[in-house]
Each structure stands twice: as structure tokens, then as C-alpha cells.
């Protein structure tokens, strides 16, 4: 029996493993993928200070450090179930069963799809799949593609595709329907983009965001938004055109786009075709919390954090004894935040194990998460901080109701 088991070898899981091993506890990390690093592997961009954030290198550093410290890492090992039997967490993989008293879930995030007619054609993939093919496997997903969904992730990955010499014809909105909703509404998309304008390399967007502080200017901005789009890294970003269909005979051959009104309605007669040999769908990210759900954690849906979040406190403890969470399972944020959460979870585990008092270190680590969040280069939701506040409130309420139960 390993002292501590971590599910997920992404930045959160690996950082937690390092922290725990440094304090002398045995750690086993399980991950279903064939390379350690999680979603950090695909990341590649230039930070405002001119440094390049190379996910493969960062992953290697974390992996090597963990291995040096004696952390066992089993790859190609999907966990299909966890349950608590007496005081022990039992972890089921396809072939082996493991047990521990302290289990950390660091399973990260998953991508949500946007359904567009034709989205089941071969050659259509999630934008994250294109990122992994390009940056991790070094295989071009195609020669010229179209990205559907305008958001932080799609613009970051569009730039990565460009760097790899892959053509991106345009980034356009999906046609509005009951699933795509806000991501098909130019006003809503514009609003969410304005919050990330600090990372927009286009001066137009930067200048624009200053001008568009008030609603009237925003409406004007979206009405006059050039139909052919605004270029970022030479890729047209189209807020007034939506993809209404992906077409092709047996595989992607292109997309049909149409001009849309500022509120997302398709304007008849404006349809045109754009040729492409692959299409990426960027529907946003949500926390991958399946294992926390089968374990029986209470959940809250918090929009700002990307979806259903297993209830936990700032020390990364869930309401279940011996079960911890860290990284994107606690809300969608960048890799640096995930690392700081992993460290915090690691310290909490050492502390609760009773080996040494880590109270001061835990407080410092919690503070460090907030600092990292504040300085984050990539922010997936403008109101992450408010989302965290909501979660804290749910935790307090839960604790108080438990106290009442004990009293009565």
C-alpha cells in the first residue's frame, strides 16, 4: 500500500507528488495518458515579459524531479472507479487495484463540444486535439483549417498552429442553437473577449477594449465590427460570421459561413463557402470530476469556474475523509495556478498524515495560489475570483449544517 496515491500526472498532480516526496512520504501517481504532464504538454506561448512557456519542457522538469525523489509514476493506467471501504480508499484500474488512506484527484479538465451540422465528419476535432497533435506528437492536423468558437483557448491555439506552419483560414462563431447559446452570440463573445484584451496581441482589440467600456459603444462596436473580421496573427477573427455547416464527402472539405446580426441571427442570402481540410471546435473547458462524483462528493455548479465543482476548501480537502482535489478539477485556470494548488494539496496531506506540522506552510501556499491567480497570463473566466468566493460560501454553509446535524 502506497502512503499517498495521486490520480493525474498533470502540473497539479506532479507538483503535489514532489511536495509530498520531499517530505519523505511514498507517492504513487496514476495517469491514463502515455506521457506525464497532462494538458501542460501542449502549451506553447510567449509571455508578456518575453519568456517562452514551453509545456513540454515544463512537464519534463516536473516529471524528472518527481522521479528523482522516488515518486512512482504509472502511465497508460486509466482509473475506472474509486470507493471507500472502511478507512481505506480503493482505486480500480483495468488490471490492478490499489489502496491508500490519502487520495488526491488531479484529473484536470475536458473540452465541451459545440454541435454544428456536419460536426461528426472525419477531420473535425476539438481544438485541444489539434494542439496535442501539433505540439506533442508533431503531426499536422491538416494544411488549412477553420476554428469554430472565439475564446481564449482558441486564439492561443490558433497562434500555436501558425507557429507550426499550419494555415488557419479564420476563427468564427458557431451558429446559435440551444447548445451553443452564448458562444454563438456576438455581444456575449465580445464581452468575454474584452476581459482578456491584455493578452490580445492586436492593437485593435487593445484600443477597442478601452473604447468599449460602456454598453452603447459595445453595441456600436459589434454593429460596425468588420464582416471580414479583425486580424490577429494574420488570422481573421470573425464575430459577425457564423459557421452554419461543415461540409464534405466522407471528410471535411470546408465550412459554410453566413453573416449574423449583433444578436446572432443568421442573415439569409449571405452564405458563402470557405475551403478547409480540418475543422477545430472550441467549446470551452469544464472540470473533469467523474471520480469525485462516483466517490460521493457534494457538487455545486459554478459558472465562473467552468461547471460542476466538487465541494472543497482552500486547503484542497473535500468533505470526504482522506480525499483531496487540486488543479483544474477545482475550476478552469492556467497551469501555474494548478501547480500552486498541487503544492497546497501536498502540504495538507503531509500535515493530516501527522508527520509534521505544516500549518504555516499551508497558509503561505494558499496565499501563493491567490497571488498566482492575480498575475495569471491566461484567464479562462474573467470572474474566477468571484467563483472561488461562491465556493467558499458553500463550504461554510456545508460545515455549519453538519454542526447543526451533530447538535440535534
Amino acid at each position: 500500500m502506497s502512503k499517498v496515491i495521486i490520480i493525474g500526472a498533470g502540473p497539479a498532480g506532479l507538483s503535489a507528488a514532489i511536495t509530498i516526496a520531499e517530505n519523505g512520504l511514498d507517492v504513487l501517481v496514476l495517469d491514463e495518458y502515455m506521457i506525464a504532464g497532462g494538458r501542460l504538454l501542449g502549451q506553447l506561448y510567449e509571455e508578456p515579459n518575453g519568456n517562452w512557456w514551453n509545456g513540454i519542457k515544463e512537464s519534463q522538469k516536473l516529471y524528472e524531479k518527481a522521479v528523482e525523489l522516488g515518486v512512482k509514476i504509472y502511465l497508460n493506467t486509466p482509473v475506472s472507479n474509486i470507493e471507500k471501504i472502511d478507512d481505506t480508499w480503493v482505486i480500480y484500474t483495468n488490471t490492478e487495484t490499489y489502496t491508500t488512506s490519502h487520495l488526491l484527484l488531479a484529473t484536470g479538465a475536458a473540452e465541451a463540444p459545440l454541435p454544428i451540422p456536419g460536426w461528426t465528419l472525419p477531420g473535425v476535432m476539438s481544438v485541444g486535439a489539434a494542439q496535442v497533435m501539433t505540439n506533442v506528437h508533431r503531426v499536422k492536423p491538416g494544411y488549412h483549417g477553420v476554428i469554430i468558437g472565439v475564446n481564449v483557448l482558441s486564439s492561443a491555439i490558433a497562434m500555436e498552429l501558425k507557429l507550426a506552419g499550419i494555415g488557419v483560414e479564420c476563427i468564427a462563431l458557431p451558429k446559435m442553437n440551444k447548445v451553443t447559446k452564448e458562444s454563438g452570440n456576438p455581444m456575449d463573445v465580445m464581452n468575454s473577449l474584452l476581459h482578456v484584451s491584455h493578452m490580445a496581441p492586436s492593437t485593435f482589440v487593445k484600443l477597442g477594449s478601452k473604447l468599449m467600456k460602456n454598453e452603447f459603444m459595445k453595441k456600436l462596436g459589434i454593429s460596425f465590427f468588420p464582416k471580414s473580421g479583425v486580424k490577429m496573427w494574420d488570422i481573421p477573427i470573425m464575430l459577425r460570421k457564423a459557421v452554419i455547416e461543415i461540409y464534405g464527402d466522407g471528410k471535411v472539405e470546408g465550412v459554410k459561413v453566413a453573416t449574423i446580426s449583433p444578436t446572432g441571427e443568421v442573415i439569409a442570402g449571405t452564405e458563402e463557402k470557405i475551403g478547409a481540410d480540418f475543422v477545430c471546435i472550441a467549446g470551452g473547458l469544464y472540470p473533469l470530476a467523474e471520480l469525485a462524483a462516483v466517490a460521493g462528493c457534494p457538487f455545486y455548479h459554478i459558472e465562473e469556474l467552468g461547471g460542476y465543482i466538487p465541494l472543497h476548501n482552500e486547503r484542497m480537502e473535500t468533505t470526504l475523509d482522506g480525499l483531496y482535489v487540486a488543479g483544474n478539477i477545482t475550476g478552469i485556470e492556467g497551469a501555474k495556478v494548478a501547480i500552486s494548488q498541487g503544492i497546497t494539496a501536498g502540504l495538507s496531506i503531509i500535515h493530516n498524515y501527522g508527520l509534521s506540522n505544516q500549518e504555516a506552510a499551508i497558509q503561505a501556499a494558499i496565499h501563493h495560489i491567490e497571488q498566482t491567480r492575480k498575475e495569471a497570463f491566461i484567464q479562462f473566466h474573467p470572474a474566477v475570483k468571484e467563483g472561488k468566493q461562491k465556493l467558499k460560501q458553500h463550504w461554510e454553509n456545508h460545515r455549519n449544517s453538519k454542526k447543526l446535524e451533530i447538535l440535534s
Partner: protein
Amino acid sequence: MEKEMIICRCEEITYGKLVETANTYNCTSRELKLRTRAGMGYCGGRTCRNMVDSIAYSSSERISTEITLKYQPPIRPISFGDLGAVER
């Protein structure tokens, strides 16, 4: 076009079918799943879960204190051989 679009690939449930069912019964995503089988295929709803949720919540209120489309183990595909493996 949009009506025939597949949402649940495993069970081949279309957008049209889901929207029509949601409108007729004003149902939660769990009920929508049970009525149409969307999300009940072999991938366990890993692809369509969010879409089924979105369609349901465009005609009924989201329940924010629980996951409405329940996760069931095994959460990853596992072969019968592995599942029933006995020590030799």
C-alpha cells in the same frame, strides 16, 4: 439540417429529437436522458453530457447543487476480460 444533427453518437440521438422531447415534457436533463437514451451509450455520456444538459436547461431550471446526469463506474471503458479476470 440542424434537426438531423447527431448529438449522442453512441445511441444516435439527434438534436431535433432532444429539443422536441425537452419542449414537450419541460424535463430535467436526467429525464431527457431517460426518455431518449442520449448519454446512455457505451462511452457513458463522455461526449454529449454537456450538450444534453444545455438542451434540457433551455426549457427547465438548472439544478446547481448536484450533478444531474449521474456518473456511473466504470468511468472508462474496460474489457469483459479485465472486468471478470480471475487470478490464475
